[in-house]
């Protein structure tokens, strides 16, 4: 059974450490990297205790809306959480060495730790609102980390692009979540309880279909996942994110954060399972897999190559989760695991290369095996795994994807044969760029390459550990599969799952696909430069459809639009602000009435007492007179008439105290007005007709809104007294000891409010004093 305390601790610990990271950095200096590693190790150990456990635990958060911090333990979530914390240990240890001498490390480790907490939250959350919250937190941390070099314009541009795309995707997820909640609520479940929704997925899916929100929800979730997991055409932020320090790239932008989208697809796969799901998600993944692989071949920088390769492999996972058969679930979950291992390794290797050779340009690097022999060995394991060469672990999961694509084509026929064809096509390029990466170590050494130092142990150990893990999974895949991966795949599947990993022994469609992939890839590698040149020509011919162009156009259009809106709404005149604020308030109020009610109420006109009508009519006439008064004195006197009429209205409304207070206040105000007016000039603004018409229109709108509001809200005649009113009436004498209920409320029941009111009056008096008598005490100098 899942243990709430352990789970909450594992998620909270990184956040706590994040809060103290800047302080620890001051105390310990760069050693704080090891503190991060210890935190990650503790989380890892805590999560390990939950392996084999199942179940959901929760603690209320917003009970009135059925939102709770629900955490669920199942193999899929645990697999993801263990990957994040396990790789986190190595990343923190690596960062200690790699970030040596860099500025702002307190902020760096704070963001990195907070990110780890968020990712654990995403992995374990069983509440849709909590999931969304953690999801967005990972985007925010990613933004901070990509923008680590705050003085660098490219860094800021990339950080903003990542923020706009991933958070925009997050908003799609929010709407998708609300649509799912609609479906869940209509079958009587707590609306945001993901575990319950998945347990009753058939009923929820049917309810969503019946209400017409199934497809919109599916599409929104797919867009959100595409934004987060760098799918076409939203992948553009991922290569840009490579400006972040290499530990960040290895952790966030290959192993964990970018997998959040894939993870969400895997989670919701059972709910949305069906032909529409496959048509959208599998196609999306296949296109990304191909585009990413082609762009990786075009890359000129090793981190750029790895970034596009990451997009391509994310496409592979998305496509896998898109396929309907159980092979899809197996390939998705297994490749999620394998890719995290080999790609984090390769990023750390890229960091070593950049650190020791001083360049990341692919064409300037080569023959590094003599300078970096151990790194070369690590790279062989990871790169061959990435290429999908047997007997490495990347081959096993890719082989299952081929099976899924083959299965879909055999079942559906026709156009669906494009799936296996595309998979092979993309994988050929995967082999190509993987070999190119390997060629950094085994190809000829360019003349321009300066001396390359051996990598220090602190940089070498983390990728070595990961490479050992790659080797272990390659040799005995059964261990990892039995421990977690098989069960993880089951959590994303609707049918029975049993992963087979190994060297194929008999000839079948998928085996032929693998054979073609590897044979063509290896055979084409000698012509790598020519392939790259022709791809470059294709890219140059299609710059117009490149997503960055669209992004930049969108951003500059938004910029221009907000400039225009700013100049007209926010022009420095308070009058203009008031105008727009009042208009918005009216529109929102009326829209609220329009959606919540049906038609206007019809009040009984006949019952209105004549005295009341007369008094109100005089008040209205006074208001007209104030507005049209031709001198300040006339205006103030007519304003007084309005005030006294309101006082009489209070008498007619049984408010004796109100009338008394109003009379006193009006008299005082009249005096103050007359005193001040004596000092003021007799300015009388000329009326600009256009402005008067515009302000008049707004005034009519405000008046109409107030009119409608009173009609809706005021009871016609005395209704039954509200419970609050009855309470005060019945308790004024027993509890407050006074017969005047209004006075008892003010001085007894709500005495603190009255105290606050008195303070306001005192403050107003003090301010008046300061404004009028202290003018020459310093401020004007």
């Amino acid at each position, binding site marked *: 059974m899942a243990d709430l305390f352990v789970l909450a601790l594992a998620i909270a610990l990184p956040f706590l450490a994040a809060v103290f990271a800047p302080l620890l950095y001051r105390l310990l200096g760069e050693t704080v990297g090891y503190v991060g590693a210890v935190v990650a190790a503790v989380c890892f150990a805590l999560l390990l205790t939950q392996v084999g456990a199942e179940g959901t635990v929760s603690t209320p958060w917003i009970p009135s809306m059925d939102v709770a911090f629900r955490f669920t333990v199942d193999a899929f979530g645990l697999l993801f959480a263990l990957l994040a914390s396990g790789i986190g240990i190595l990343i923190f240890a690596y960062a200690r060495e790699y970030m040596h001498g860099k500025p702002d490390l307190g902020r760096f480790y704070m963001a990195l730790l907070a990110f780890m907490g968020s990712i654990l939250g995403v992995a374990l959350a069983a509440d849709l609102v909590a999931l969304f919250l953690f999801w967005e937190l990972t985007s925010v941390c990613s933004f901070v980390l990509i923008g680590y070099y705050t003085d660098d314009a490219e860094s800021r541009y990339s950080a903003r692009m990542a923020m706009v795309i991933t958070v925009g995707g997050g908003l799609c997820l929010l709407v998708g979540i609300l649509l799912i909640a609609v479906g869940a609520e209509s079958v009587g479940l707590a609306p945001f309880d993901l575990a319950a929704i998945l347990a009753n997925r058939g009923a929820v899916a049917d309810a969503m279909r019946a209400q017409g929100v199934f497809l919109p929800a599916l599409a929104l979730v797919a867009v959100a996942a595409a934004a987060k997991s760098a799918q076409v055409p939203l992948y553009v932020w991922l290569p840009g994110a490579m400006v972040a320090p290499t530990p960040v790239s290895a952790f966030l932008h290959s192993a964990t954060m970018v997998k959040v989208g894939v993870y969400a697809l895997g989670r919701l796969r059972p709910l949305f399972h069906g032909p529409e799901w496959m048509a959208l998600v599998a196609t999306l993944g296949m296109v990304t897999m191909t585009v990413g692989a082609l762009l990786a071949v075009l890359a000129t920088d090793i981190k750029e190559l790895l970034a596009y390769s990451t997009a391509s492999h994310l496409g592979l996972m998305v496509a896998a989760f898109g396929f309907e058969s159980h092979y899809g679930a197996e390939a998705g979950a297994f490749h999620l695991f394998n890719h995290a291992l080999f790609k984090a390794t390769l990023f750390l290797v890229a960091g070593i290369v950049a650190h020791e050779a001083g360049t990341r340009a692919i064409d300037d690097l080569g023959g590094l095996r003599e300078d970096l022999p151990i790194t070369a060995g690590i790279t062989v394991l990871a790169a061959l795994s990435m290429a999908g060469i047997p007997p490495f672990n990347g081959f096993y999961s890719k082989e299952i994807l081929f099976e899924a694509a083959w299965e879909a084509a055999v079942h559906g026929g026709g156009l669906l044969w494009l799936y296996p064809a595309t998979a092979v096509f993309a994988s050929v390029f995967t082999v190509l760029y993987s070999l190119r990466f390997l060629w950094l170590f085994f190809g000829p050494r360019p003349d321009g390459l300066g001396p390359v130092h051996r990598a220090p142990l602190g940089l070498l150990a983390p990728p070595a550990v990961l490479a050992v893990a790659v080797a272990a999974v390659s040799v005995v895949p059964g261990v990892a599969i039995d421990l977690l991966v098989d069960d993880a795949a089951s959590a994303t599947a609707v049918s029975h799952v049993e992963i087979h990993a190994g060297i194929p022994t008999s000839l079948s469609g998928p085996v032929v696909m693998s054979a073609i992939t590897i044979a063509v890839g290896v055979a084409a590698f000698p012509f790598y430069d020519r392939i790259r040149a022709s791809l470059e020509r294709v890219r140059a011919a299609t710059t117009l459809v490149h997503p960055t162009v669209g992004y930049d156009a969108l951003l500059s259009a938004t910029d221009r639009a907000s400039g225009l809106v700013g100049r007209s709404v926010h022009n*420095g005149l308070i009058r203009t602000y008031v105008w727009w604020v009042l208009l918005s308030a009216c529109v929102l109020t009326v829209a609220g009435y329009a959606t919540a009610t049906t038609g206007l109420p019809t009040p009984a*006109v006949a019952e*209105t007492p004549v005295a*009341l009508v007369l008094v109100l009519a005089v*008040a*209205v006439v006074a*208001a007209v007179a104030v*507005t049209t008064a031709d001198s300040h004195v006339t205006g*103030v006197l007519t*304003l007084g008439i309005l*005030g006294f009429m309101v006082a009489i209205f209070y008498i007619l*409304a*049984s*408010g*004796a*105290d*109100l009338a008394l207070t109003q009379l006193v*206040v009006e008299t005082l*105000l009249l005096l*103050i*007005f007359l005193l001040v*007016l004596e*000092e003021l*000039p007799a300015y009388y*603004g000329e009326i600009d007709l256009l402005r008067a018409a515009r*302000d*008049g229109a707004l*005034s*009519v709108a*405000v*008046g*109409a809104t*107030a*009119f*409608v509001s*009173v*009609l809706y809200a*005021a*009871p016609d*005649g*005395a*209704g039954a007294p509200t419970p609050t*009113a009855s309470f005060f*009436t*019945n308790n*004024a*004498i027993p509890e407050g000891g006074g*017969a005047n*209920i*209004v006075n008892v409320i003010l001085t007894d029941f709500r005495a603190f*409010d*009255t105290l606050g*009111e008195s303070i306001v*009056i005192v403050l*107003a008096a003090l*301010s*008046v004093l300061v*404004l*009028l008598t202290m*003018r020459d005490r310093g401020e004007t100098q």
Partner: protein
Amino acid sequence: MSLALAATVGVLFAFGTFLLLRDDLVKVVWGLAILSQAANVYLISMGGITEPTGDTVPVLAEYYAPFPETADPVVQALVLTAIVISFGMTAFALALSYRAYQENETIDVTEWPQ
């Protein structure tokens, strides 16, 4: 009954808004004052208004239950507070206008330095 109230509140709000948007600072203060009056009338109308009698005033003549049904004392307490606060606000706004006139030598807000 509520139709008359609604019409009054609407008209008062309209004129108050119009005055609030004028260039003459004194008129802006008037606008504030009218808006407060309108809001108070609005609040009172929320409690529901009946023909006044000795019993409807929320001052209890009988000291023992059952107490008579009075006009809503809650809205009256709210409005009483609001009257006093708006008095403070109007007085402060006037003082501020006077000070602004001293500094800028005009009460036309469009002629102030931006």
